[in-house]
C-alpha cells in the first residue's frame, strides 16, 4: 500500500494550509532572541562610551575566550533541556576534568591522549546518567545533584585540595590561529555541530518530541531511552572537553574551578529560551544567553561596579526573561483557544 491509494479529497473551501512570511515558530524564536541581542548591543554601547577599550578587538577576543568553557557547556545543556532533561553535575565534571588533565600532563602523557581520555570519560559518565534516567526512571534533577556532590568531592580528593599547576601543558588552548584563540574556535565548532544536530537532523526532532511529550513520542516509535542516553553522553563529552579547556585557560587543574558553574550554565540556557519543562529552546538562543552573561559580567567590571553586583544583575535579567516568556506563552495559548 502506498499513500497514493487514498483517494484525494481536496476541498475547494479548504484553506491553503499556509500563510505567507516567517514561520510562527521562527517568530517565537525571534521574540526570545531580539531582547537578548538588544541587551548585548546596549551593554556594548554604554560600556564603550564609558571606557573605549571595551569594544576593542583584543577585549572582544579575551571576552569570548574567557567564556568558551561556559559556551561549550551551554550547548550540551540546551540539548538536554530541549529533551526535557537536566544535568547539574557539569560544574564538578569540569573540576575533575581539569584536575585529571593537569595530573596527566605532569605525568608526561601526550596531549592527544589526555584530551581523548577526558572526552571518553566524560561521555561514559554521561552515559551512566542516561542509563539511570532512562531505565531506573530517577528524576534527573536529584540524580545529577548527587553526581555534582560526588564529583566535587572526587576532584578535591584527586588534587589533595590544591590546584595542580601545569605551566607548560595544554598551551594550545591559549594559542591563536589567524588572530583567534583556539578555545573560541573549538566553541564555534561545538555550536555548529550542536545546531546541525538539533535543528537539521531528524534526531533533533526526536529530541524535541521527547521533551514536549515523552509518552506521545514513545507511542509514535521514538526510541526515548536511546535519545536520553545520547543526550547525556553528548553532554558528558562536552563537559570533559570543557574540563580540558578550563585547565588549559588557567594553566592549572583547579579542583574548585567548576564550583557553581552548573547554575550559570542552566541560567544561560534558560535565558536563551530553553524551558526546564522541555520541548523548547534552540542552540542560537543558548549562545545568545552566554553572550548576555558574558557581557553583563564584563561590562560591570569595566563600569567599575563592584563585582558583588554581578549575580544580582544576572538574576534580575533571568527573572525578567522568564517572566516575559511566561506571559507570551499565556497569550499564545489564549490565542490558540480563540482560533481553535
Amino acid at each position, binding site marked *: 500500500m502506498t499513500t497514493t491509494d487514498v483517494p484525494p479529497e481536496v*476541498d475547494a473551501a479548504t484553506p491553503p494550509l499556509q500563510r505567507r512570511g516567517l514561520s510562527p515558530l521562527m517568530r517565537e524564536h525571534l521574540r526570545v532572541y531580539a531582547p537578548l541581542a538588544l541587551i548585548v548591543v546596549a551593554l556594548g554601547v554604554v560600556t564603550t562610551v564609558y571606557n573605549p577599550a571595551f569594544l576593542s578587538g583584543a577585549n572582544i577576543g579575551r571576552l569570548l575566550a574567557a567564556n568558551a568553557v561556559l559556551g561549550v557547556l551551554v550547548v550540551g545543556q540546551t540539548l538536554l533541556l530541549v529533551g526535557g532533561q537536566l544535568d547539574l553535575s557539569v560544574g564538578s565534571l569540569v573540576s575533575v576534568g581539569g584536575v585529571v588533565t593537569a595530573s596527566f600532563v605532569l605525568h608526561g602523557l601526550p596531549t592527544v591522549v589526555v584530551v581523548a581520555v577526558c572526552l571518553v570519560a566524560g561521555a561514559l559518565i554521561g552515559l551512566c546518567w542516561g542509563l539511570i534516567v532512562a531505565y531506573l526512571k530517577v528524576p534527573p534533577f536529584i540524580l545529577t545533584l548527587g553526581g555534582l556532590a560526588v564529583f566535587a568531592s572526587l576532584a578535591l580528593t584527586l588534587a589533595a585540595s590544591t590546584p595542580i599547576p601545569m605551566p607548560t601543558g595544554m598551551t594550545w588552548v591559549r594559542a591563536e590561529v589567524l588572530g583567534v584563540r583556539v578555545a573560541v574556535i573549538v566553541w564555534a565548532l561545538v555550536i555548529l555541530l550542536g545546531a546541525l544536530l538539533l535543528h537539521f537532523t531528524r534526531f533533533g526532532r526526536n529530541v524535541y*518530541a521527547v521533551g514536549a511529550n515523552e509518552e506521545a*513520542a514513545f507511542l509514535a516509535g521514538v526510541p526515548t531511552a536511546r535519545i536520553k542516553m545520547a543526550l547525556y553522553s553528548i553532554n558528558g563529552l562536552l563537559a570533559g572537553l570543557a574540563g580540558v579547556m578550563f585547565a588549559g585557560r588557567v594553566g592549572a587543574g583547579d579542583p574548585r574551578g567548576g564550583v557553581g558553574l552548573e547554575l550559570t550554565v542552566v541560567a544561560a540556557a534558560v535565558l536563551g529560551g530553553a524551558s526546564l519543562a522541555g520541548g523548547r529552546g534552540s542552540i542560537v538562543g543558548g549562545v545568545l544567553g552566554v553572550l548576555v552573561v558574558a557581557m553583563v559580567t564584563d561590562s560591570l567590571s569595566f563600569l567599575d561596579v563592584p563585582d558583588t553586583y554581578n549575580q544580582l544583575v544576572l538574576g534580575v535579567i533571568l527573572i525578567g526573561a522568564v517572566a516575559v516568556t511566561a506571559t507570551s506563552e499565556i497569550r499564545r495559548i489564549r490565542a490558540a483557544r480563540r482560533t481553535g
Partner: protein
Amino acid sequence: MIELQNVSKSFPGARALTDVSVEFTPGRVHALVGENGAGKSTLIKIASGVLQPDSGEIRVDGRPVRLTPRDARELHIRVLHQERQVALTRSVADNVVLGEAPRNRLGLSGQWLVEREARRRLQRVGVELDVRAPVATLSVAQRQLLELARAVTFDARCLIMDEPTASLHPDEIGQLFEVVRRVREHGVSVVYISHHLSEVIALADDYTVLRDGRRVGGGLVEDTTTDGLVAQMFGSEVSLRREDIHGGGTEPGDVAARLRGVHFGRRLKGVDLDLRFGETVVINGPVGSGAAELGRILSGAARPTAGSVELMGKPGSTRRRAAMRGVALIPADRKREGLLLDRPIHENSELAGDAAHPLTWYSAVRAADRCRRGGRRLGLKASDVRLAVRGLSGGNQQKVLIDRWLRVDARVLVLDEPTVGIDIPSKAEIYRQLRALTRAGAAVVVLSTEYQEIRCVADRVIVMRDGVVAGEIPGVDATEQALFALGARS
C-alpha cells in the same frame, strides 16, 4: 423559565447567532445540538450572562432581564464547563461547599459542619462519595459528579452542561445520566450540549438544532432519531449511516497479527485473535473488559504476561519495533498520548517518520510542504501547518495523527476510540478514510464503544467481556441490541 427571544450576536468578521429563539423549561432536559461553530457556545455564553446579545432579549419567568455573570449567578443559572474546576488536594467535602462554606451562629465554619453539609448535598443528587477523600483520588467521572452536586446545590434554576461526557466511559455515563434525571425531577431546567446524538436521544426531552448561528430545527426528542438529527444539523451532505460510508470491502488477505492465549495480568485471560490485511475489526467492550489492553498489546505498547503475539509472521516485541514495522497506534487520549501540543502541526505529522529515521537530515521547509500535501488529502483545516497543533479542533488534530502514520505507510492501524469529542462531519470523513485504507489493503483495528461508529466501519466486531472474547458478529449484523446481548450475557 428562561427564554431567549430573537437573539442575535456578531463578532468582528463573523455573525455567531442570527435571530435565535429558545426556551428552557423547568423540569426538562433541553439538548442543544449543532456542529462546531454552529453557535452553541455563544448561546450558552449569552444565557449565562458572559456575553450580551446585540439584539433580542432574555426573559426569566416572563420578565425581560439584562444578564451579567453576577446576575446569572443570583438567578441560579449555573454552567458546568468542559474543563474540570476542582481543588485537587482538598477533600470532597471542601470541594462541594467551595466558596460558600456553611457557618454557625458565630460565623465560624468547621470541618464537621462542612462535612455534614456536603453529605446532605451529595445525597440530594444521589451521588455516593466519601466526603473525606481527597479529590485527587477520584476518577474523572466521580469528579464530574462532584461538580454536578456542587452546581445543583447552589439551588440551580438552570444547569447548563457543556459536553459533560467528553472524557467519561460508558458505564460512568450511565451514572451521570441518573444524576441528571434526578436533578430534573427537582424542577431544574437542564441544558445539555453533546456531540453524542445517542446521548441526546437517551436523555433529553426537548432539542434545538443550530446551524451557522440559526435555529434550523427543534421540538420534542421523542419525535426524532439520530439520523433525523444529523440530517437537520448538516442538511443532506453528511451522513453517519453504514450504507453511505462502509462501501463494502475486499476479501481479507494475509494475517497481519496473530494473538494466541494472550494474558495480561488479570485484565486479559487467554485471548486468541487473527487480524488480516484488508479488514476492519472493531473491538467492543466497556472499561475493564480488556478491549483497551488488547489494543496496546497489538501495537506493542504493552507486553502480554503470557501467550504469543505475532506481527506479520514475526514475534511482536517493543512499541518501537512494532512502529518500525508499520503498526500505527492512535491513542484515545489525543492530548496526553498522541500530540506534541506546542509543536507545529508539521512536526506532529512527521513524528513517526522522524522516529524511524533519526540519522537523516531534516528540513523544516520540506517537512511543512509534505504536511501540506498530506493535509489536503485528509481535508485538514488549518490556516498554517507551521502553527502549534494545540489550536486545531479535535477532528483536525485526529487527522494530523492519522496523517502521521500514512506518511510512513503504516499497514496495521490500531485506533482507540478514534472519534471521541470530534464533530460529526470530521467523524464521517475519518470513517471514510478508514474504509479507504482498508480497501487499499491495510489491517485496521478500532477500539470503540460507540454504536454508530461500529456500524459505519466494521467488517466484524469482537465483543470483549471480563478479559475474554465474548463473541464475534459480522459488521452488517452489529445492531445495538446484538452487541449488548453479547456483552451483557454472563
